[in-house]
């Protein structure tokens, strides 16, 4: 882990939707400055909710941080408006491929550079960078984003986030729906951004193997709580993680999906 | 003891341009009545409501009046008055309205609807006749062809459409060519297309059946589109505001007046002016209209009827009608209004209509047309009630 103060500190927060549905309780994590942290967890554990709580988009879905605090570079942000938080340097890649459907791919990317001080060359360079990573987008750059394929939309969304120059990126399932070849690319990009531009990253990813391979530290969530957190090496060795997040059998090999047992096999951490 | 009277007024709706002044007049006139002894010593309690010229609102307010126990209602528009008329008849509620619709003058159908003035149909016939008498002979085409007549009014407004059948009938009698009607809303401020359509017909005279607001807009557009016709205007569109709003475009416009204009030197006007100053000092006299005078006249005949019925000892609806109104014979209310006569078979008060013309922004009498005198048979039978 890198040195210094953590860039993001979540302290014992509690999140409710519609003032009655409690989804996150007593939840704390830290993201070190310039580090990558992975957040793993089953469906509905509250990973996306956590990210929205950080970026302030929770308000938008009638959710609220009702307890605890979120600090970004020492400033409390859990009561701030979303755009203010974004201005401070937190950008979220929302799950569900939210492109601006009616804009073209290139316009989508350009909107990403909205917050930057106007600098034509700079934006051109970033565009080039995105096209370099996703050559498919270059081909599609004049298409309306709503009509391109699911994977292409995913690329657009990730590309759009790259166009901003944030201090912290919250990535919600960046690899979803991408072809195998591209998944590696995406993770390469993430590591490079982290190394070269010194952007801190909070990564939510279902592909635990890859997530653990690029993030030195990870948290495991269940039911709105952190149930485990450790360095990636340690987690990879953990038998539960192996079984439930990496899909490895005890022997270590991959099992055939035809052989998956029929009975209910879900394990619950005691929370 | 007090007597409750209801008043329905339009201070905010489509006819508020004339309705507000009328409403003020009603309140001032009631003050006057109370100051001068009320109804044989009983004071009148006035329940005055604004109904925004909306029929539904009028219906609810009428229900409210019933609950408040009023003995008579001072109404306003034609739509609501006609809509309420069967109910009023059934309830035996004297209903003195500012709607001078000819439909309300037949006691066989609408015995409880009353007003002091010549009705719209009579006014319209008179105005057209006056134009035919005085203006047409001066026209360059006089004697070469028939004069052309068209009308412009809001079709859907019962008020504006009330006299249309009559005026067309009159145009037929006088030998006009009749052109297409134009629909102009009471709120209209853009009447270009109507004027263009009129222009296609090239009328010599146009009847405007709306109130001042939209009439002034129509006149302005007619002027700027160079229509080149004369205008005759219904009573509620013809007041002191017209020359102000339409400026040059209003020059030469003709119309009937059912009583004296505000401030004119006629008997009783001093009281009207004094009460206007006393109760509404905020409104300068040059902003007051003939509407105030009309309101006074309506209140004054109601007072007379109430006094007569009260003297006879009964203040229920039927007695107010039978012992009050229908006993008036050439009753003089002053204010330049005609002497009022109601009989059990005819509720038309008069057949004589003074028609004016605007000259340099002032009203000038053109002719007093006496319809009964000219067409006695038609007046007696055929023209009754429409």
């Amino acid at each position, binding site marked *: 882990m890198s040195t210094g103060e953590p860039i993001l500190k979540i302290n014992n927060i509690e999140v409710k939707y519609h003032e009655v549905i409690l989804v996150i309780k007593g939840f704390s994590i830290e993201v070190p400055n310039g580090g990558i942290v992975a957040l793993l967890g089953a469906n509905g554990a509250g990973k996306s909710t956590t990210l929205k709580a950080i970026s302030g988009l929770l308000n938008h879905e009638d959710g609220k941080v009702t307890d605890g605090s979120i600090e970004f570079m020492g400033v409390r942000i859990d009561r701030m408006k979303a755009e203010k938080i974004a201005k401070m340097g937190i950008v979220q890649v929302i799950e569900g491929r939210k492109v601006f459907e009616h804009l073209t791919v290139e316009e989508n990317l350009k909107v990403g550079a909205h917050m930057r001080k106007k600098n034509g060359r700079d934006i051109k360079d970033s565009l080039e960078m995105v096209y370099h990573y996703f050559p498919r987008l270059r081909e599609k750059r004049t298409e309306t984003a709503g009509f391109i394929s699911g994977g292409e939309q995913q690329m657009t969304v990730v590309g759009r986030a790259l166009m901003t120059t944030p201090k912290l990126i919250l990535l919600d399932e960046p690899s979803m729906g991408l072809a195998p070849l591209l998944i590696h690319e995406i993770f390469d990009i993430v590591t490079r951004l982290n190394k070269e531009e010194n952007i801190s990253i909070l990564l939510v990813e279902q592909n635990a193997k890859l997530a653990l391979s690029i993030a030195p530290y990870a948290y495991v969530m269940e039911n709105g709580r952190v149930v485990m957190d450790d360095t990636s090496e340690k987690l990879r060795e953990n038998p539960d993680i192996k079984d439930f997040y990496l899909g490895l059998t005890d022997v270590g090999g991959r099992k055939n999906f035809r052989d998956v047992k029929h009975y209910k096999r879900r394990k619950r951490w005691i929370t | 003891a007090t007597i409750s009277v209801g008043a329905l007024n339009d*201070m905010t709706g489509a006819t508020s341009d004339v309705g*507000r002044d009328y409403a003020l007049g009603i309140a001032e006139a009631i003050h006057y009545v109370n100051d001068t002894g009320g109804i044989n010593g009983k004071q009148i309690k006035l329940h005055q409501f*604004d109904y925004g010229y909306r029929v*539904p609102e009028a219906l609810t307010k009428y*229900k409210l009046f019933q609950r408040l126990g009023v003995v008579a209602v001072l109404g306003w528009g*034609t739509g609501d008055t006609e809509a309420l008329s069967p*109910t009023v*008849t059934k309830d035996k509620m004297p209903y003195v309205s500012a709607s001078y619709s000819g439909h309300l003058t037949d006691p066989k159908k609408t015995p409880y609807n009353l007003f002091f003035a010549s009705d719209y149909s009579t006014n319209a016939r008179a105005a057209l006749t006056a134009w035919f008498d005085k203006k047409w002979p001066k026209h360059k085409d006089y004697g070469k062809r028939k004069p052309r007549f068209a009308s412009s009014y809001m079709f*859907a407004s019962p008020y504006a459409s009330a006299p249309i059948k009559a005026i067309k009938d009159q145009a037929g009698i006088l030998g006009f060519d009749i052109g297409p009607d134009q629909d102009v809303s009471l709120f209209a401020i853009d009447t270009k297309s109507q004027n263009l359509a009129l222009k296609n017909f090239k009328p010599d005279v146009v009847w405007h059946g709306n109130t001042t607001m939209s009439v002034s807009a129509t006149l302005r557009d007619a002027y700027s589109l160079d229509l080149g016709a004369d205008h005759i205007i219904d009573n509620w569109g013809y007041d002191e505001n017209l020359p102000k709003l339409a400026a040059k475009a209003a020059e030469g416009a003709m119309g009937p007046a059912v009583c004296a204009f505000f401030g004119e030197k006629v008997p009783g006007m001093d009281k009207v002016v004094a009460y206007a100053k006393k109760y509404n000092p905020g409104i300068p006299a040059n902003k007051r209209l003939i509407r105030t005078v009309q309101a006074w006249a309506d209140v004054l005949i109601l007072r007379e009827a109430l006094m007569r019925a009260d003297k006879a000892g009964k203040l229920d609806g039927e007695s107010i009608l039978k012992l009050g109104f229908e006993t008036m014979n050439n009753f003089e209310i002053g204010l330049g209004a005609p002497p009022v006569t109601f009989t059990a078979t005819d509720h038309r008060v008069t057949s004589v209509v003074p028609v004016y013309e605007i000259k340099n922004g002032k009203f000038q009498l053109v002719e007093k047309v006496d319809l009964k005198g000219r067409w006695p048979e038609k007046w007696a039978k055929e023209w009754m009630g429409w």
Partner: protein
Amino acid sequence: MATTFLPCGVYHENYKQDQAWWQTKFIKSKMFLLFISLFFIIPWISDTYWLSIANLIGYTVLGALGVQLLIGFCGQVTLGHAAFLAVGAYVSTLLVLEFPWPALLVEWGLAYPLSILISAIAAGFWCVLFGLPSARVKGFYLILTTMAAQFITVDFVITQYVSQIGGRGQAFSLPPGTIKVGPWVIDSDIKVYYMMIVLVILCVVGLVNLLRSRVGRAWVAIRDNDISAEVMGINIIKYKLLAFFVAGFIGGIAGAVWISNLAAISPEHFPWFLSLWLVGVVLIGGAGSIHGTIFGSIFMVVVMELLQMAVIPLADTYPKLLVDFLFIKESAFGLAICVFLIFEPNGLAYRWWQAKNYFNLWPFSY
């Protein structure tokens, strides 16, 4: 927000129980109380003024149900529903006044009930006519076609032509005693009240039933996601038009019933304002909820009445207030809508849902 959490300790043993209307004894007795108070207590304790307000609420509920169905359950935005109330009202008025009913039917007081049915059907079809564009037009573009329904129906067809039938000028008069249901002549607020309440209950129950059966699910599916609804085998055009029909039908009933409360009917009873007002009722009550419609109606009518009540006594001291009353009422009303929606953008039903869940989960919420 369809879900509610059952109170702790209540379980269902079979599907029938789970699908029943009134799932617990408690709710059953609540409903019984409601019934009693609607039919006996309210008419007994209220004077004519309050009854007339109750009638206004009933009318608003009936009118808004169709809007709720279209906006809240089928996702078709409408800003012209007053047109269909107008069709209902005019068809039934014309039938009552001008149709040569056989004497027997009039005597038995069936003429008016029959005319309600006919006018509701007519309004339903009229609504379908203006719903036709919805096959292609989506989202806010549909607002235009529904506004067209309003202006064409009320401001054009009815104002210019229908209301001139019989040379009546503008308003059809319905003098007291015209309207008869069975042996009763509907001439007092209490009779209107009973008729209204029966119809409101019938319509609400019918609509709720529809919504939990095949047709209603199809509507909601179209609202939520029309493409996947289509792929699941729903003929969306058919169901949209069906929704328009039902909405128009209920609207027609509302219009036809309302005339029993009036001395005359004019196009001004159905201005565009009424359409907006109905949408307001639905949104304030909460889109997508039937009891929201009822809450919304009560709220809107009562706010209006309170404004009115506040002004009349004040007018004695400030006569100027009476002159400006309509303006003040209008702007206060507008402001009330704004403020309400700013603080409760999801409507009253949402608050209700929150409160209910809070209490159901209480005291062991988590």
